């Protein structure tokens, strides 16, 4: 096996590759340092957390539609911090449900699904590297992530239960046990996020090092597939933003348990400091959760349109712009927090500007399907839906970016609709598409397309039935985070909408069943996948399954950019990156 680039870690990986056959079960499946196994560990774990987060959401929706009605069947088995003796969800328990729904979905589902799974799986395979730069750190990162999930969820068994001050945990509600009543849960939240942050930082350092140092010969930066660009930019965001959250969580933990007053309103503390720290992390976080999905979707759309991505460099620069600008827009979460009004004007401006690169990306996706020869695979359906849902989520963001309108719709269901269009219709649809797309390379078998289409149709319809009416609820002045909308005169007429949303949400929850059945059935019984089922150009489709530890038998050489589809004068409609173009063919530079 020839050397990619002189790199000490790479040669270590190769030597461990030499001992491949001797790996024990423990080293192969539990403490594995193979990036592909770690990716699959991330996949199973975060799919499990997706079910947990989804069930929590069902609890939230149940309460909003039927406040005070005992939960059927399971109500009497739920702990007393969550339900009354009759089995109805209590207001405090409701706060705990949505707090943990968001925390689980953000830190244990979307981030690991996009970054843990596809970052780990795709980066070495797509850049032609044998493994990550630091395989040990990679394994450590996964186990820290799992540990953080266990810590976060363990407070379920505490007498006061889950934390209940929202995933944003605004101080001083979160920093004083006498206000929130969930000292143990809130402490678990701080520790869990701190440990989760360590996992993210380890992963990010690893990704950056790998992409910068371990690219195969000929893999110039502007020949990187877009998912790799997206993950590289995301890794930089993680590295710069997550330590701020970790520090803030540690400070909050001290306020809560050791009597410090960083965020207290007395003793020179400052409640707004928490919000600045949290959102300085929190807004880059939003892009951490959408940029990788943009990268994955770009590739799926290009492959299935049989066309080069439209404006490759514009796509890269747009993502870089989002990454940079993402650090100066956090204040738009705080227009009405009591922050200086002039600051609000400034943040409003940067927020309007950051909408531009998102618009550029949308137009380029449309440019990619233009003139294509579109194959409607399940992966493609999810990717195409991603674009439309992202447009809705992006356009609704403009309402909040305009400060005077934010005066009206701040903290209403409008923002709940907005974030779910971006994170569910965006990120999660992107993840579903990517799972259907890369499943053959992960498990060596194809997923069933018919069941995939059924999953897509159900998810698409019920997603929109669930989240679109939330815009209307928000404009009607329905506050987010209230356990019982019927307490308010102006919301009582809205209750039929809430019930409709809840029924749709239950259907949306059930729509994952065909996916899960398809996923697990195909893993064992699906038809064997060819090496390159989608006729794709990138390097991961040149390796056989099961892909050996070390990935490439011989280090590939890269001759051109990643999306050479339908090149005129060629018989096949794709030209893999490791094959030079025939002499008769001239590739257009992008």
């Amino acid at each position: 096996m020839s050397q990619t680039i002189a790199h000490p870690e790479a040669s270590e990986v190769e030597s461990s590759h030499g001992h491949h056959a001797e790996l024990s079960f423990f080293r192969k499946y539990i403490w594995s340092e193979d990036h592909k196994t770690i990716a699959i560990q991330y996949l199973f774990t975060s799919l499990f957390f997706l079910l947990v987060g989804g069930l929590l959401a069902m609890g939230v929706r149940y309460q909003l539609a039927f406040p005070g009605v005992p939960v059927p069947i399971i109500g009497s088995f739920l702990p007393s911090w969550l339900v009354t003796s009759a089995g109805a969800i209590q207001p405090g328990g409701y706060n705990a449900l949505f707090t943990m729904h968001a925390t689980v979905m953000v830190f244990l589902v979307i981030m690991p699904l996009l970054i843990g799974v596809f970052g780990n799986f795709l980066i070495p395979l797509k850049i032609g590297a044998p493994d990550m730069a630091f395989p040990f750190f990679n394994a450590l990162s996964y186990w820290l992530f799992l540990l953080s999930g266990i810590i976060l969820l363990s407070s379920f068994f505490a007498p006061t239960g889950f934390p209940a001050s929202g995933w944003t945990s605004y101080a001083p509600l979160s920093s004083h046990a006498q206000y929130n009543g969930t000292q143990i849960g809130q402490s678990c939240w701080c520790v869990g996020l701190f440990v989760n942050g360590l996992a993210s930082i380890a992963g990010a350092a690893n990704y950056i090092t790998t992409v910068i140092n371990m690219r195969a010969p000929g893999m110039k930066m502007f020949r990187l597939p877009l998912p790799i660009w997206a993950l590289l930019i995301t890794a930089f965001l993680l590295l710069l933003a997550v330590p701020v959250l970790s520090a803030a969580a540690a400070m909050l933990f001290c306020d809560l348990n050791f009597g410090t007053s960083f965020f207290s309103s007395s003793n020179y503390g400052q409640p707004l400091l928490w919000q600045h720290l949290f959102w300085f992390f929190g807004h880059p976080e939003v892009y951490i959760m959408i940029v990788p999905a943009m990268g994955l979707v770009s590739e799926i759309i290009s492959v299935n349109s049989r066309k080069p991505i439209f404006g490759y460099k514009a796509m890269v620069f747009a993502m870089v712009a989002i990454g940079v600008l993402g650090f100066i827009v956090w204040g738009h979460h705080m227009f009405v927090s009591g922050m200086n009004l002039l600051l609000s004007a400034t943040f409003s401006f940067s927020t309007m500007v950051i909408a531009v690169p998102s618009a550029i990306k949308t137009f380029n996706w449309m440019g990619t399907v233009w003139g294509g020869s579109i194959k409607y695979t399940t992966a493609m359906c999810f990717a195409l839906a991603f674009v439309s849902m992202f447009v809705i989520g992006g356009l609704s963001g403009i309402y909040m970016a305009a400060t005077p309108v934010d005066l009206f719709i701040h903290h209403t269901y409008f923002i709940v609709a907005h974030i779910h269009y971006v994170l569910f219709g965006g990120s999660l649809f992107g993840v579903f598409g990517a799972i259907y797309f890369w499943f053959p390379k992960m498990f060596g078998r194809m997923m069933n397309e018919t069941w995939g289409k059924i999953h897509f149709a159900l998810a698409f319809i019920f997603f929109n039935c669930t989240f679109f009416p939330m815009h209307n609820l928000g404009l009607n002045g329905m506050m987010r985070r209230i356990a019982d909308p019927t307490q308010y005169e102006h919301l009582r007429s809205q209750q039929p909408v809430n019930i409709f949303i809840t029924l749709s949400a239950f259907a949306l929850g059930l729509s994952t069943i065909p996916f899960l059945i398809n996923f697990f059935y195909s893993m064992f019984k699906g038809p064997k996948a060819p090496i390159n089922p989608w006729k794709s150009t990138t390097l991961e489709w040149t390796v056989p399954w099961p892909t050996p530890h070390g990935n490439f038998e011989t280090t590939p050489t890269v001759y051109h950019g990643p999306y050479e589809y339908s090149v005129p004068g060629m018989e096949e409609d794709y030209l893999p990156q490791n094959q030079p173009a025939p002499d008769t063919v001239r590739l257009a530079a992008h």
Partner: protein
Amino acid sequence: MLKQSSRTSLAFLAMVVLLLIASGVCGRAAVRTSDLWWMPEVASKGGVLIDKLTYFIYYLTGAVFVLTQVVYIYFLVKYRSRKGAKATYSHGNNRLELLWTGIPTAIFIGLWGYSNHLWWDVLHAPTPPDTMEVGVLAYQFGFSFQYPGADGKLGQSDVKLIGNDNIFGNDPNDPATKDNFQSSVLELPINKPVRVRLNSRDVIHAFYVPQFRVYQDIVPGRTIDWVWFTPTRLGSYQLACNQLCGSGHYNMKAQIEVVTQEDFDKWYKEKAAAAVIPAGNAPAQSK
């Protein structure tokens, strides 16, 4: 018999069209006079301006959404995979990139100019001389209000003075605070500007009245006194806390009564006369 790929693309198209029709129904319903689908009727002067901007953004984003989706869906149908058809080999077009970078940039910056102008007008403009100031105290889980009393002045207050026997933190050395009186209802005269002085005793709460198009967080340890509005419609409203503040958050609200100036003066006189206990004692429980 259609090919598999055409059938799926048609199914996809049908779903998108259904969604568009569904959202169209929502849009049409918006015209109805009942408030089932749309914003509650505006009841303040600034709210009218905010609604104008909201509608402007609504039509702008609506047009962008419809245009992009029509083009997108047209492409998706027209360029579906067909036998013998080959995709166009194109890596992009720099002129187009410039166009669709430049136009959105201009629109967004223009929109910022409009909205920022309004932001200062609504929130930061100097209040008219006849503005009434009302103290608002938020606590887990309720609101109390303090009126200036006969002299029309709230007087000095300081968050550091807030305590169980002085819930609004009134400065005892300022004579203007002596005749202040408390209320558990926010009684407001119509068409008269009112400025609220917002304080919190424990955690962050919010002052949210959707009909007035007003939202402001109330931060403990600080006094926020820049929020003002002019009610323009008689009636009862609810002041809601819209910042998660604990287990009782869902029910933290207070009644707002917008009444005629005469009714207000009558109420005010009675309350001021009956204020045997000076403002600052335990939160008032009754009207």
